[in-house]
């Protein structure tokens, strides 16, 4: 029963519009591939390491195929052909291409049947490793258990992975359930994934496979000690979305930020590129049992939170539909929203509560990711602590899935070790003290909270129908999200997008589609 008396027909209308939007995007996506998707195929096959200039081997090989003019057929065909022709491993083939002793485009081509047979065989083995990681997570969760929702999510961002480990373990001991390692500024715009353990980043730490491994081991260790599984989070968004999703699957990350729209609007990444990348990356997240986090909360940093509430909801609907088309179950959809209204508003708390409760009711099974006040945080840390407290109240009252804790020093620096402690202590206090408060209250049928939710839902439905009419890509270019305008051919990374050739082949996509039950959905 809806506490906000939301009209189920209106919700259904909004969902249908979002579904149509997602369908038309999906047909656009499925005609294309990108350099990042092809590098991901190689990474999933286990290709790793860098050449003499520190260029990752998947980049070396994909660039080589691009120069040879064959990338639109998919990297797998040529690399698997080389496996058959030379008897070497995929890693060795990467190394040979890097040192210039092997040209994949000049090798005679074995029969496609043979290539595909070998490709599926090796891909199946790779996917088994990911499946095993998933089983291991489940095993941890049954044996160690986990904290109650809202999960307490905090970030570490020292720039040095080893120092991040210290801060992360401390946070886990203090009560954190999810540790997110924020990436260094600018990483989302580099068209390769840096290699190895890194100790110098700005505002964050580079996402590398080795860094993932180091943090995973540390959190498993502290989790064992304190008897609670600690989830690890990192970021897919950017020019390497699917590659980072693959690294996350291989190193057993649990939560990953994954939102093309974030890249489009806030990093000026080309929309064609990142939508194609997103689709494959979400399939990988889905199979790996990763909870994705979407970035709707960010809209409220460039536009007004009261006005943009319908766009946030509209975007959640679209993200839900796109996620379903990547095989992602609702239980893994950490749809984003935030407590970002100006603290100067009278009754602002009511509007925030309304929005959060509405999202909870419309996406009942999604572990909603609730973001704290950021834009209206100031150098006044004392007031900031109170702003965060109101946010924590809404989080527990409306049963959010993931509470990204606010830091009272938000406007100043990435968290110091005790900023995090103060935040965790306060959140635990509010969550415990108010644990069942949400169940005790009902909202006045003709009150402000109910009226606000109905108005936002109504506007979101209208907005979605408008987007369906003009098309999603056109809606973005008109600035309908976050007041930011982006065009089809603008932004970074378009040169890495290709139309798929007739005989395009991506064995992981094929296998994952079957695994995730997507064949049934395709028409």
């Amino acid at each position, binding site marked *: 029963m809806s506490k906000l008396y939301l009209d189920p027909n209106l919700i259904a209308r909004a969902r249908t519009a979002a579904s149509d939007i997602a369908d038309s995007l999906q047909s656009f996506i499925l005609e294309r591939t990108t350099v990042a998707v092809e590098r991901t195929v190689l990474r999933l096959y286990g290709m790793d390491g860098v050449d003499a200039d520190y260029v990752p081997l998947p980049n070396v090989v994909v660039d080589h195929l691009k120069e040879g003019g064959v990338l639109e057929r998919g990297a797998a065909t040529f690399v698997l052909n080389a496996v058959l022709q030379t008897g070497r491993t995929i890693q060795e083939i990467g190394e040979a291409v890097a040192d210039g002793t092997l040209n994949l485009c000049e090798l005679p081509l074995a029969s496609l049947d043979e290539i595909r047979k070998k490709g599926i065989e090796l891909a199946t083995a790779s996917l088994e490793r990911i499946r095993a990681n998933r089983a291991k997570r489940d095993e941890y969760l049954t044996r160690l258990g986990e904290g109650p929702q809202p999960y307490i999510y905090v970030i570490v961002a020292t720039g040095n992975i080893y120092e991040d480990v210290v801060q992360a373990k401390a946070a886990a001991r203090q009560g954190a359930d999810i540790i997110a390692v924020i990436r260094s500024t600018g990483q989302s*715009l580099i068209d390769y994934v840096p290699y190895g353990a890194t100790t110098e980043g700005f505002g964050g730490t580079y996402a590398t496979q080795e860094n993932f491994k180091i943090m995973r081991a540390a959190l498993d260790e502290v989790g064992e000690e304190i008897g609670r599984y600690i989830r690890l989070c990192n970021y897919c968004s950017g020019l390497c979305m699917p590659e980072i999703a693959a690294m996350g699957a291989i190193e057993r990350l649990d939560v990953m930020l994954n939102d093309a729209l974030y890249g489009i609007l806030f990093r000026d990444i080309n929309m064609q590129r990142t939508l194609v990348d997103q689709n494959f990356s979400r399939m990988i997240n889905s199979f790996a049992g990763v909870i994705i986090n979407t970035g709707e909360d960010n809209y409220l940093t460039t536009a007004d939170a009261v006005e943009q509430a319908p766009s946030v909801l509209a975007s959640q609907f679209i993200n839900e539909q796109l996620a379903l088309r990547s095989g992602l179950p609702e239980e893994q959809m950490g749809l984003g929203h935030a407590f970002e209204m100006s603290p100067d508003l009278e009754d602002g708390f009511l509007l925030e509560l309304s929005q959060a409760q509405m999202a909870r009711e419309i996406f009942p099974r999604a572990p909603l990711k609730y973001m704290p006040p950021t834009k209206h945080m100031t150098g006044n840390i004392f007031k900031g602590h109170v702003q965060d407290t109101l946010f924590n109240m809404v989080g527990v009252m409306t049963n959010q899935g993931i509470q990204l804790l606010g830091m009272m020093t938000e406007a100043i620096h990435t968290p110091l*070790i*005790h900023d995090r402690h103060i935040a965790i202590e306060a959140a635990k206090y509010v969550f415990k003290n108010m644990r069942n408060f949400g169940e005790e209250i009902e909202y006045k049928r003709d009150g402000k909270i109910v009226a606000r939710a109905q108005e936002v839902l109504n506007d979101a439905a209208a907005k979605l129908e408008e987007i369906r009419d003009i098309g999603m890509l056109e809606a973005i270019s008109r600035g309908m999200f976050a007041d930011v305008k982006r065009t089809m051919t603008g932004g970074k990374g378009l040169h890495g997008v290709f139309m798929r050739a007739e005989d395009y082949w991506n064995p992981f996509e094929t296998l994952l589609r079957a695994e995730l039950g997507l064949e049934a959905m395709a028409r």
Partner: protein
Amino acid sequence: MSEAARYEPWKNRDMTHVRPYGDTFDDGVVQLSFSLPVPPGEEAAEAARQLVTQMGFVEPSVTHQHDLGEDFTFVVLYAKTKAAVDFTKIKVAKVDSPRMSFYEINEFIEENFGRKITIIGACTGTDAHTVGIDAIMNMKGYNGEYGLERYPMIDAYNLGAQVENEEMVAKAIELNADAILVSQVVTQKDVHIPNLAQLVELLEAEGLREKLILICGGPRIGHELALELGYDAGFGPGTLAPDVASYVVQEMMKRGLK
């Protein structure tokens, strides 16, 4: 000492000796909090007290400590200081041109330059924060003040975020800019310093530095830092378009840039 001076000492306060105030005039009370890389306990508290004493505080009192795990301890302290500053001698580098209104600025440009002036701006380097520079430049402005794009006598070009210094310089040449506005929001580990300094070098290499007004801004940017880095001015939190525009037009006048 008169009765009043004894009971209300703040009324004739000595501005050459100013120290913090809690609840008794001149008590020097300060609150502090920090973490130490040691496990919690009596020793941690004593370490905190000794540290604070070394900092020049007296009567330190640890009111709270908390185990952060991994052998770190958070402490909260109160202490007093005997230090004092001579407030009459304080000098702060400030942008000192008077602030004009939207109308005054446009009029000033028309009268003194007889042409539109060109201002380009961006958030540079790897920094993707646009809200600050948008607040200054975009039509709709910020906090009730229009942005520079709205000024009839200003051609304002907001290049957005993540703009490379090289591109900034190329644009300045292409558009014959009178002023460049640079925003820097990410300042972690001083990432903004080399980036800001590089722009000055590039402009100098092109022989452009003296021909235009160069300004930086952001939440952690001050006028003093800007001067140190070779900028003409720096603007911090709460800046609005007229603050910047007033400075630009008056500085152009002063420097004879017509």
